[in-house]
């Protein structure tokens, strides 16, 4: 049974009680927000554990083993520990900025999911500017990192914050251009429309030769940079900046950055799966299962990168983005446009 059936049934029951439509909408929104939050929190906890286990497997270690089955509850234990920790605010920080940075980061990470289709019909709100909304909201992350770097009053944090701002801004551009080529073909900014335009496997945008794979690779590279993961993890760069922007954070504030990072990784994977891998489309399994499989597949790739590659230097990072990725993305966009309007490969 599709999950959406349950939601529709509940919605109808709500309407049948006869309360005003405004309230029905409000209640359904709150309920879906809570559900999304719960699922994402679970996913984030799982991803932290998975990253640790995966890194252990890559390195022939065991990783967490003691808390729960193969350490499955380890992240929960860590979260509880972090909540208990004293929330240290260093004396000379810029208090409001320091205080709000993790919150903005955390909220922005969740707000994206308004328009992410988890399955057929499993979407909070199918905005007709869906992808634009996502791109806009993810940009909030930079603001929060910049705030954290600036507000911490620490030179390492400042460098980390500046790096992250420069990095995210420069990689946002090729990423958007890569996304645009998909939008061009789908003819819509709505996430649902984009998914529906790739009903069959050869219609997935990654298989639309030749522009699809290029756009996908550009998207993956830019998304790695966007989420500050190796080889683009310069804002945190432990060996250079110790911990970068979150150097002064502790306790729950740190946990917020930490969880937001993993949710962001899930976000970019989900968007990648939606835009290029057909989203929830797939045979046999329920739609949400296909969505999760594809998304976790991409998450695996990001983790694989992290446990394999060294890190680029900040100027090389910029050079790579502006001198290589961006021209390539534009060329690809032109190619996609030409393909679209010449009618070639327009299946």
């Amino acid at each position, binding site marked *: 049974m599709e999950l959406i059936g349950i939601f529709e049934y509940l919605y109808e029951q709500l309407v049948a009680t006869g309360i005003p439509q405004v309230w029905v909408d409000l209640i359904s929104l709150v309920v879906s927000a809570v559900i999304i939050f719960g699922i994402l929190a679970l996913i984030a906890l799982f991803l932290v554990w998975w990253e640790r286990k995966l890194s252990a497997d*890559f390195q022939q*270690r065991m990783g967490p083993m003691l808390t729960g089955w193969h350490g499955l509850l380890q992240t929960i234990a860590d979260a509880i520990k972090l909540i208990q920790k004293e929330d240290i605010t260093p004396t000379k920080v810029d208090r409001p900025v320091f205080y709000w940075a993790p919150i903005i980061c955390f909220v922005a990470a969740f707000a994206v999911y308004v328009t992410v289709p988890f399955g057929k019909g499993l979407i909070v709100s199918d905005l007709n500017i869906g992808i634009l909304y996502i791109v806009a909201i993810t940009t909030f992350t930079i603001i929060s990192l910049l705030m954290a770097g600036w507000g911490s009053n620490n030179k390492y944090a400042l460098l980390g914050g500046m790096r992250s701002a420069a990095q995210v801004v420069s990689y946002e551009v090729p990423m958007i251009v890569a996304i645009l080529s998909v939008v061009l073909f789908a003819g819509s900014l709505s996430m649902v429309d984009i998914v529906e335009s790739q009903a069959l496997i050869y219609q997935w945008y990654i298989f639309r030769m030749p522009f699809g794979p290029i756009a996908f690779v550009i998207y993956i590279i830019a998304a790695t940079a966007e989420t500050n993961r190796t080889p683009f993890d310069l804002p945190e760069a432990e060996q250079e900046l110790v911990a970068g922007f979150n150097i002064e954070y502790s306790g729950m504030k740190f946990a917020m950055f930490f969880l937001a990072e993993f949710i962001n990784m899930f976000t970019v994977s989900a968007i990648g799966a939606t835009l290029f891998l057909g989203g929830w489309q797939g045979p046999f399994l329920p739609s949400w299962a296909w969505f999760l499989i594809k998304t976790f597949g991409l998450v695996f790739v990001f983790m694989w990168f992290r446990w394999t590659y060294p890190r680029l230097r900040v100027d090389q990072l910029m050079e790579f983005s502006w001198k290589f990725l961006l021209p390539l993305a534009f060329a690809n966009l032109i190619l996609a446009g030409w393909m679209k309007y010449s009618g070639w490969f327009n299946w």
Partner: protein
Amino acid sequence: MRKLVDAIKNLFIGLITTAKHLPRKEVTIQYPDERWTMPERSRGIVILLSDKETGELNCTTCLLCERACPSAAIKIVYEKDDKKKRHLKDFIVDNTLCCFCGLCEEACNFAAIKMTGKYEFATWDKTDLIWHTDKLQEMGRDVPYEPKKKREPKPAAKPAEAKSEATAEKPAEPKIETEAPKPQEEIKPKEKQNETRTEQEDNNNAEGDK
């Protein structure tokens, strides 16, 4: 262009290398549940060995280990009787100072002090790391060891002395003296020991026995 192809190829080689390790078995062990078997020569914590049969310490208070220790971790408290023979009062090993070099074990001619494969001695209080005779002896109870290959040539004489009387000592004593290639301080006490009596002799005999 060629460079680009190479670069992409090598990025994939890196990914494949890590992926190859993915199914391999772990090389680590889950520490408190599983442990290594320490090699027989491991130099872990210092213990005092005692005779397997009598349960007495092998130590003859010769102070060689105390002198050999480069970090002054060993302190031997003794008391001289009227014959100038040393009686061990307390054998103190300060594990906070010990550098696990093994020189004390090498210096010992009586298989009395040994470094073992034991390595777990964390405590909450630093002062608990200063170990006295009883603790050192206790830790050494289950440690197997080779009785020191005595340079004493007569195995025949020793069994006679071994578990029993003080009478047999007279013959034994000169031998010990000559054989021991140690500094002078050590030989002296031996002579006296033999001349005198009691449990100390037993200890000596026990060592000889081994």
